[in-house]
């Protein structure tokens, strides 16, 4: 399965010029998906919150490193206006995902992803791919591949403190 080979959303500018002009905001694409309990979830339900959206799969080794971090973030920052949404990209769907959620005691919401959704988010070529969405619904950052827990946490705290806007893409290179 290929989720899409569309270009990334945008690349954050770097260097002195970048300081003069912030990159344009890109709003997070709307979606309506089912969660692991069968409930309908709209991204708009999270308006006004900082949201970490993580595309992952049960077969993805690097994704499994991040999951405990996201469990921790959900625990510590949920009451401060933050949420994690995991989007499971397993072809086999809930049949494989639900047992994994139970086994790993995942405390944040998991949604069932699909190719169309991945395309609407600019193309999710590899996993993990994570977007951090600001309170105003704009994409603050995109991480492709495994990054550090500190990187995520700095962004979450910054956004909870009020920063918004701009897009930066970070992470590993694609083949």
């Amino acid at each position, binding site marked *: *399965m*290929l*989720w899409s*080979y569309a270009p990334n959303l945008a690349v954050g500018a770097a260097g002195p010029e970048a300081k003069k002009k912030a990159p344009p905001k890109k709003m997070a694409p709307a979606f309506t998906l089912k969660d692991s309990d069968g409930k309908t979830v709209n991204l708009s339900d999270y308006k006004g919150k900082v949201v970490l959206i993580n595309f992952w*799969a*049960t*077969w*993805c*080794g*690097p*994704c*499994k*490193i991040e999951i405990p971090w996201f469990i921790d973030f959900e625990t510590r920052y949920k009451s401060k206006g933050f949420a994690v949404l995991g989007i499971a*990209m397993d*072809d086999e769907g809930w049949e*494989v995902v639900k047992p*994994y959620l139970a086994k790993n005691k995942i405390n944040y919401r998991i949604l069932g992803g699909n190719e169309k959704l991945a395309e609407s988010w600019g193309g999710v*070529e*590899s*996993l*993990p791919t994570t977007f951090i969405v600001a309170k105003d619904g704009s994409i603050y950052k995109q991480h*492709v*591949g*495994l990054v550090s827990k500190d990187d995520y946490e700095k962004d979450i705290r910054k956004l909870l403190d009020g920063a918004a806007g701009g897009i930066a893409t970070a*992470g*590993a290179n694609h*083949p």
Partner: protein
Amino acid sequence: MALLAVSLLPAQTTLNSLSSVVNVVAPEKVVLKRGASQAVEFTIQVKTGYHVNSNKPEDEYLIPLRFTFTGGESPVQVGEIEYPKPSMEKLAFSTKPVSVFQGDIRTKALFKAGPNVPPGVSAVQGKLRYQACNDRMCLPPRTLDVKIPVEIRN
């Protein structure tokens, strides 16, 4: 079982070599005598820096490398696939060693033509299912199609 190699043409072809990190190099053509069997080698090439899960990844969630042959319209029968020994690698993201293949993976499949198979050329069709990662990210599982012309001679 008698293993009667007839001939394997030296020329090879690279299949599915587009943007994938995995290619399969297969014989351009296999020539087989009626009633004979032959081990046919396929080399699975994994791009440097990447690995694929082995055929026995020892984790229920990991997707194993799997070569399957359907035969297609060919009367040639394909036996069990022989995989090399995987390596146990401690990857940046793994808490314990993972059973993987890297680089060139030489696999063998036993092609067999029954004694009553008519002479002629047909194509054996196979599929390679794999899932590749590097030490920071994983690519979605993919399936490559492999088609091998087989000539049956008297």
